[in-house]
């Protein structure tokens, strides 16, 4: 990029310098100007069909489309001049002559680009006085996608995505003229793993998600940046919540990881975040029974157990736990001969998105395998389970202990189980501590390419559940081996000091797109 020639031009009076070959629409973003558009999308090949991005270039008699016109040295571009405004107002009027007034029942309302630009630049009334609008029925394109042809503005983003990015031309434009609609062959279905992205790409409520249908209004949603825990790709996402419940996942753009996209498996990977059968209070084993207690008591009990034990310890951790939790759990058993382990589900084969290099639904179905490995955990759960016999302390962090019997667990002297739900095996643990899940805390994960990425808390943890890093930090404090940690940021800083691969990184410099660790690949 450094030796690319720069072009300087003026857009709405603001001077910008951009690499030669940049389109005016992209250059305008740097000038702080958003040129209205529909068919253009930075993740798709240019179409130039909607005509919404018409702008004036001084010295050029006709209006030009900003999405497909390259910048030129000394160009003077007017986006909001009368002629362009009138032309764009007319495009909107044309789009609305068949577009039904569905807003009251349309999921897109509140995040609809047709609404947005009509409010910004459209007419307040239509002059269309002819016969009634289209009445085509809603179509099921398969998988999660419904097509509402009446609302379609034929921007063709969906068609271009499936053809050029997913490399599976399963959607087409059918017919001609104002009879045109998005079509699909009757034998075909939108079950491509990455097809759900067409719903996000659709500027209006024409392609909609069955999963999200009539679930919530866009303006009721809070949107929190997070990272998908479905696999080791680490796609950036936003968690949309309403009244403390996650109702939708959407991709969050990250040019280095998932660009603008997310796979359907990840997209649906949120129901577990709302589970109701959570452990809500710290529990302590008294006799045969686990009884609820308070944090102060529980934490001092854990500290007592740790300081009173020696010899061997085993830590079984979930590969979706945060780096902070993994680091602190390791630190907690520093004085033991510790076996640190995790296990991860691996499926056969990966499902790439052809048009984005390095992007796929990965075979490893957990988000922080790289972090676990970097922090010294080994993918050898079986050995760790064997090591439980004779261990003086077992700490489990969010592993569901599937396949491990209560008897096997009780072969250790003491077990502290940190988790979100209580599996049967854990009923024999000495202490059970409720933790927040990925949606309920801040933290970091490392994806398969060694990228350390932050996720933010999107909803409250239920009951008395707390983030694992907090719990472990408090225990360390009880043991006199650290200070209370008041934020995940602080926990990360502690880790970055001690762990070479995280050195130099901080929440501040990770930002919301992350950075790679000092070693490119773990």
């Amino acid at each position, binding site marked *: 990029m450094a030796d690319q020639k720069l072009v300087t031009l003026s857009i709405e009076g603001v001077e910008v310098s951009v690499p030669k070959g940049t389109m005016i629409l992209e250059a305008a973003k740097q000038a702080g100007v958003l040129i209205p558009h529909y068919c253009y999308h930075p993740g798709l090949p240019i179409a130039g069909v909607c005509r*919404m991005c018409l702008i004036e270039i001084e010295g050029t008699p*006709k209006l030009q489309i900003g999405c497909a016109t390259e910048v030129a040295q000394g160009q003077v571009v007017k986006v909001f001049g009368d002629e362009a405004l009138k032309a764009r107002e007319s495009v909107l009027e044309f789009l609305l002559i068949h577009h039904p007034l569905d807003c009251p029942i349309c999921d897109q309302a509140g995040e609809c680009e047709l609404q947005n630009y009509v409010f910004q630049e459209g007419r307040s009334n239509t002059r269309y006085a*002819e016969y009634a609008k289209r009445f085509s029925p809603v179509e099921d394109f398969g998988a999660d996608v419904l097509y509402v042809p009446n609302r379609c503005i034929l921007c063709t983003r969906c068609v271009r995505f499936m053809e050029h990015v997913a490399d599976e031309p399963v959607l087409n434009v059918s017919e001609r003229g104002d009879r045109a609609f998005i079509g699909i062959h009757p034998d075909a279905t939108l079950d491509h793993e990455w097809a759900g992205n067409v719903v996000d790409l659709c500027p209006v409520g024409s392609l909609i998600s069955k999963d999200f249908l009539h679930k919530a209004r866009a303006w009721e949603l809070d949107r929190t940046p997070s990272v998908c825990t479905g696999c080791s790709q680490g796609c950036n996402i936003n968690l949309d919540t309403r009244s403390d419940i996650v109702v939708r996942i959407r991709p969050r753009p990250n040019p280095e990881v998932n660009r603008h996209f997310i796979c359907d498996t990840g997209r649906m990977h949120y129901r577990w975040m709302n589970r109701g059968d959570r452990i809500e209070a710290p529990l302590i084993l008294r006799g045969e029974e686990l009884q609820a207690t308070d944090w102060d008591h529980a934490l001092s009990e854990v500290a007592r157990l740790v300081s009173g034990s020696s010899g061997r310890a085993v830590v079984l951790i979930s590969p979706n736990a945060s780096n902070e939790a993994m680091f602190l759990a390791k630190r907690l058993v520093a004085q033991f001969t510790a076996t640190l382990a995790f296990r991860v589900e691996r499926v056969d084969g990966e499902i790439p998105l052809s048009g984005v290099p390095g992007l796929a639904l990965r075979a490893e179905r957990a988000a922080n395998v790289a972090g676990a490995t970097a922090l010294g955990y080994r993918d050898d759960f079986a050995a760790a389970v064997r090591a439980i016999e004779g261990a003086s302390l077992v700490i489990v962090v969010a592993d569901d202990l599937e396949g491990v019997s209560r008897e096997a667990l009780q072969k250790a002297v003491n077990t502290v189980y940190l988790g979100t739900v209580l599996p049967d095996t854990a009923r024999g643990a000495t202490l059970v501590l409720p933790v927040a899940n990925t949606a309920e805390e801040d933290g970091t994960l490392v994806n398969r390419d060694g990228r350390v990425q932050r996720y933010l808390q999107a909803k409250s943890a239920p009951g008395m559940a707390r983030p694992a890093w907090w719990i472990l930090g408090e225990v360390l404090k009880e043991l006199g081996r650290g200070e209370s940690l008041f934020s995940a940021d602080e926990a990360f800083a502690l880790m970055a000091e001690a762990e070479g691969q995280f050195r130099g990184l901080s929440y501040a410099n990770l930002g919301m797109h992350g950075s790679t660790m000092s070693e490119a690949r773990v």
Partner: protein
Amino acid sequence: MGYPHKPHDKETVILSEYFGDAEARSYAGWVKRGGYKALKASLEMQPAEVIEIVKSSGLRGRGGAGFPTGVKWSFMPKEKSKPHYLCCNADEAEPGTFKDREIMRWTPHALIEGCAIAQYAIQAEITYIYIRGEFTEPLRIMQAALDDAYGNGVLGDDAMGSGRRLDMYIHRGAGAYICGEETALMNSIEGQRGNPRIRPPFPAASGVFGMPTTINNVETLAAVPHIINRGPEWYKGLSLNNEKSSGTKLFSVAGHIQRPGNYEVTMGFPLGELINDLCGGMRQGRTLKACIPGGSSVPILNREETESCLLDYEGCVEMGTMLGSGGVIVFDDSADMVYQTMRLARFYAHESCAQCTQCREGTGWTVRILERILAGQGEQKDLDLLLDLADQMTGKTICVLSDSCAAVVISTIKRFRNEFEAYIAGTREPAVVAVGVG
């Protein structure tokens, strides 16, 4: 008028010399009539020389755009680094135009020879002749002529013994006017929907299959052998009005006329004379009301304008219209201009590819407003609306189909406003409108 018929004295018969002469369809017959001399001569020149000859002849695209042909050829890369292509646009579908059909069904070898010379000049190995699907007879005749030409060594790996490869194939269309647009034609050849492309890139840089391509109309290419044979000066000398418009043009005359048909006249010929003299004037008891001189996509002229219009590129522009494809549509006083405006708008609405918002929605909307006016439910403000829509459909889309529909609306309302107002005022019986859009 079908062929054969004796040409009118005022015609300048060059392209149409052998229309009606069945023997001219065969290779042997064509050679007997002087055919393939020009190709032989061209193959002995450098490609660049051929381009220069065509450039200085002043030949301009006869499909409608009127772009100087030699200049278009010179846009192709001189240094060849990838395959070049020539596309012959035989997708004649501009209402009022039926000249390419005649060239193909009477003098297929003229077209083949013209294509071959052009192909050689632009260093293309392959020419695709894109013939509209409805032209079943030209398809048949052109294929037979191609087979004949191959069989006689005119085409193939060693064209006329020159050592050059000149291959030529027919590509059959399947019913889409828009495929007559250069870039839509290329997409159609590639097996896609016939959508016009955004430019840049231009065909000479990236055309069919992403390779440098030139697209020329049938009539344009058919003129090339004559220019080679008789020299560019001769062709340039054929000019009655403006030196920038040279050669002859086949004008297809249709509609309310005594003798519809194709007439070949020198550029700059008076439209009034074409209609009243060569075509025999109006039908019994009728008077000339309007004329579209260049295919339905150019502005309509009223009687006075028609009678003073000179038929070349500049002459038509002076009159506020364009030469276009030279499809002359004549309307007498019996024509319902409002109905025909609706019918032409409906044509464009049917043929819109659906890419650009203004065209896709605007053509259909225009039709519906006109249908309502014809049904007696129009209002004065509808005319303002039609003109505003037409304005927003002009100069804002990928191709000019949208502009064409707008031109019909604007020019007919301008010149025949009284007819629209009669429907609106209710002084004219509502028309029964057959069928709807789509």
